[in-house]
């Protein structure tokens, strides 16, 4: 009696142990396609006080013998493209990078086709970047390193990813000279799953189900590229990153005052009479997010009426190398840097002829 019962129980225990081992090795993407999932239950009972032989379940009563209940795991195509953040860019600069990571979240190995999709101007963003390219990000993640990062050629398989594996990617592009401070340019990076080692898009199995053959089903969600381009369950996924321009926005205001009339009277009573000194004040303000560099200010002095008195005086907000040169009638003032949110004040004097 005891012997028979143990036999039934022992098989249950063994299965339990196997379950524990199998769970430890499971992928996040799921059980490998083609795996058989088997089930068998055991029923024990008595007639009156007497134990009866244990009964194991039959999964297919129409067939002779006792069948385990079984079905196969199908291939689940699932992929996830993630943006690792945006990038701030300065106008007229090349090779600006947006960082992405593509992960195979399905249960089978796949290759991938990649493409970039520009944001719609006026709806998604303000301008387009130039020379938009894709690279495999091999070195420091998120940084474009020529020679280390591998260029991706459109229409090719970027490389096979096993379930749970991921690859870091970059969109690299050049910022044109035209965009203004805070303007944005958005790009989607789209991936499409292909059969491993090929450029053939993995197709979802259509038609009647077949328990003996592995079918393929798409499982991924819709990505950022939007309806029609990247829908839910179409074997594609996308994410978007944004380039944001940080520019210097510089304004200048010029004022003048007679600071000495030649006889000792100063501002505000001194009159603009021959011999008087006039001081010009330039206030240069940078309201942009980037430092303004290499400013050149020119002033055409009316040398018929005035004589330039060197030298110009540069205020604390005028940083970097400052210099002036006067080549009649043009006064040229150079300021190395007017930092973001800084004000550079320059004063220079002339005497009235």
């Amino acid at each position: 009696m005891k012997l028979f019962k143990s036999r039934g129980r022992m098989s249950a225990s063994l299965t339990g142990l196997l379950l524990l081992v199998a769970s430890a090795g499971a992928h996040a993407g799921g059980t490998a396609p083609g795996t058989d999932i088997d089930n068998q239950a055991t029923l024990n009972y008595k007639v009156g006080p007497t134990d009866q032989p244990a009964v194991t379940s039959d999964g297919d009563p129409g067939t002779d013998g006792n069948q385990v209940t079984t079905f196969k795991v199908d291939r689940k195509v699932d992929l996830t493209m993630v943006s690792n953040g945006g990038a701030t860019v300065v106008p007229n600069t090349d090779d600006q990078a947006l960082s992405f990571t593509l992960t195979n979240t399905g249960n089978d190995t796949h290759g991938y086709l990649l493409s970039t999709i520009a944001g719609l101007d006026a709806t998604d963003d303000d301008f387009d970047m130039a020379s938009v390219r894709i690279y495999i990000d091999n070195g420091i993640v998120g940084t474009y390193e020529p020679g280390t990062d591998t260029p991706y050629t459109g229409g090719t398989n970027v490389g096979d990813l096993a379930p749970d594996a991921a690859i870091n990617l970059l969109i690299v592009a050049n910022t044109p000279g035209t965009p203004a401070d805070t303007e944005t340019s958005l790009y989607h990076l789209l991936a499409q799953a292909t059969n491993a080692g090929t450029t053939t898009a993995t197709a979802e199995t259509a038609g009647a189900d077949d328990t003996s053959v592995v079918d393929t089903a798409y499982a991924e969600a819709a990505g950022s590229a939007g309806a029609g381009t990247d829908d839910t369950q179409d074997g594609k996924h996308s994410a978007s990153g944004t380039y944001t321009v940080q520019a210097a926005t510089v304004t200048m205001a010029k004022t003048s005052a007679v600071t000495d009339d030649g006889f000792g009277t100063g501002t505000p009573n001194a009159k603009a009479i021959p011999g008087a000194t006039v001081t010009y004040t330039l206030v240069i303000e940078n309201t942009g997010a980037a430092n303004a560099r290499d400013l050149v200010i020119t002033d055409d002095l009316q040398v018929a009426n005035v004589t330039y008195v060197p030298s110009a005086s540069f205020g604390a907000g005028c940083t970097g190398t400052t210099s002036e040169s006067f080549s009649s009638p043009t006064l040229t003032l150079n300021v190395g840097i007017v930092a973001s949110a800084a004000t550079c004040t320059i004063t220079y004097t002339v005497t009235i002829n």
Partner: protein
Amino acid sequence: MTITNKGMIVAGLISLLLLSTTAARASQDTGPIQLTSMAEVENVTTDESGKQTVKRVPASKVVPGKDVIYTLVFENTGTLPGNDIVIQNPIPEHTVYKADTAGGTDTEISYSVDGGNNFASADALTVSGADGSTRQATASDYTTIRWKYTRPLPPGEKSSVEFRVVLR
């Protein structure tokens, strides 16, 4: 006490005889109580008006993450009632039991986390961690489900129990 022992020995002998008789018959599915196990999935179809219909079909195209419904039907094809019916189902490999989905009319349900050696009700089941601490067991810890059918099953009658798992 002596009498009891004798009684047990006698009972033991009887069941040993039964054991050999059953072995001679070989096939399990000719016994008085028969047990079948069926695996199904739910397919949701949406028609043009947006109305959703849920239909149960035999499990075939099952991708990881999908629910599988197991139904165990037990039928008394014999001439004597069966009693003390206990059904045990190890959670299939690569699946995780879905909490609170085990059911069956006139059953007491318990679970095991140690491969079927010990069973307890859901709220009484605990798991020990590597550091010796214990916590309440959750559905993903269960290794086996057990249904005790609380009434006899008369000849010609059948009943069923079911549970759901999620395919890893």
